[in-house]
């Protein structure tokens, strides 16, 4: 979706302001949101792509004005409400009104194992890659209202295949629970002048990881 999350190239957002000796978390509630999100992710009630969509699918001003863990909190609430894991009024009253067992409960003694295992997204597919290293491509001008990992700033732009990273789960379909639909994911090099024009952009380029269906020959 062309939402507040698609930030590449946007102006007016101010300086970077890195914080010296920054702590991992800035408040207790951030820790709790982080842990609740990971633990709920482990229930298997949704996938990582649906999780990303839940965070970004809101008014762009709200997305940008919320702090990072406020965005996570919002996303977690959305995902739970969609599945009836959280119902109207429960957060306000603190009283359970409705519940059901989740698919999987991550026990404390399995945390290390679960983190170590991770969630690999590469898949073996029988098709051969449509593009080869060195091929010139154009990023398709796709504007789905649903989840996509094709950033707006490359759409319609021309780049060169720099590497074939193997086949990966396709987030655009996976986020909608329409299947993993794995396809080749390429590293594509775009010159800064192609992306941003000729002013002050000499000597830099951007590499973007792009699924095959985001690309067309150029």
């Amino acid at each position, binding site marked *: 979706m062309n939402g507040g999350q698609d*930030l*590449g*190239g*946007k102006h007016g*957002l101010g*300086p*970077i302001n*890195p*914080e010296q000796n920054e702590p*991992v978390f*800035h*408040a207790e*509630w*951030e*820790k*709790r*949101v*982080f*842990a*609740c999100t990971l*633990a*709920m992710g482990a229930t298997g009630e949704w996938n990582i792509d649906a999780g*990303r969509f839940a*965070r*970004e699918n809101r008014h762009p001003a709200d997305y*940008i*004005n919320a*702090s*990072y*863990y*406020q*965005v996570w*909190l919002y996303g977690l609430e959305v995902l739970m409400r969609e599945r009836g*894991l*959280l119902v109207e009024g429960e*957060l306000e009253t603190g009283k359970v009104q409705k519940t059901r067992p*989740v698919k999987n*409960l*991550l*026990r*404390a003694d399995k*945390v*290390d194992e*679960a*983190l*170590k*295992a*991770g969630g690999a*997204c*590469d898949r073996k597919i029988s098709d051969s890659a449509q593009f080869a290293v060195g091929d010139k491509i154009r990023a398709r001008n796709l504007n789905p209202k649903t989840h996509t*990992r*094709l950033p707006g700033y490359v759409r319609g732009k021309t780049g060169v295949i720099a590497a074939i990273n193997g086949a990966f789960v396709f*987030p655009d379909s996976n986020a909608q629970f329409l299947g993993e639909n794995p396809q080749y994911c390429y590293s594509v090099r775009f010159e800064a002048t192609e992306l*941003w024009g000729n002013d002050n952009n000499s000597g*830099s*380029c*951007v*590499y973007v990881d*792009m*699924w095959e269906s985001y690309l067309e020959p150029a």
Partner: protein
Amino acid sequence: MPHDGHDEDEGSTLSETVLRVKALESLLVEKNYVDPDTLDQLIDIYEHKVGPRNGARVVARAWCDDAFRQRLLEDATTCIKEFGFEGRQGEHMLVKENTDTIHNMVVCTLCSCYPWPVLGLPPVWYKAAPYRARAVAEPRAVLAEFGVTLDDDTEVRVWDSTAELRYLILPMRPKNTEHLSEQQLADLVTRDSMIGTGLALEATS
């Protein structure tokens, strides 16, 4: 995005958030969706056990052992796993090497993708809108805000983590460090040098 939760003008929103999180966590536990010990353990791991010192060990090894460096650039996931750093948000690792002529840096313009097993959780600035917006469009200006100025003829390569590949930058080894041990070298490797927004520290003589 504002800094996380310590801006004064966010006071009322912040206390609402705190209450909401408390209510949510209680419900999750009561409904048996989460094990409360699991929550504490997850926090402990990412607050105290996983962090950029992991990545620094990998970089220092690459500086000392050229065969390892070669393997790391070809198959980063396997090489990093040899240190026990693996799994969540590091399933598919790529290492990009900075040289005299090429400077690499990493961003995730669409969210906050970051190689957790080697760097821990990302800093606020990495996840916030200004860096995500500007790193791809004006990397040299961004680097300047981190105090990094590169030669005009150095090519800047920005890696936008739009997929599940996670990037670790192999910074250049500082000069005059031939006498240092691998462990001493690891102390020169900063988090930012492994994101590409910084350089490794100079050796103190």
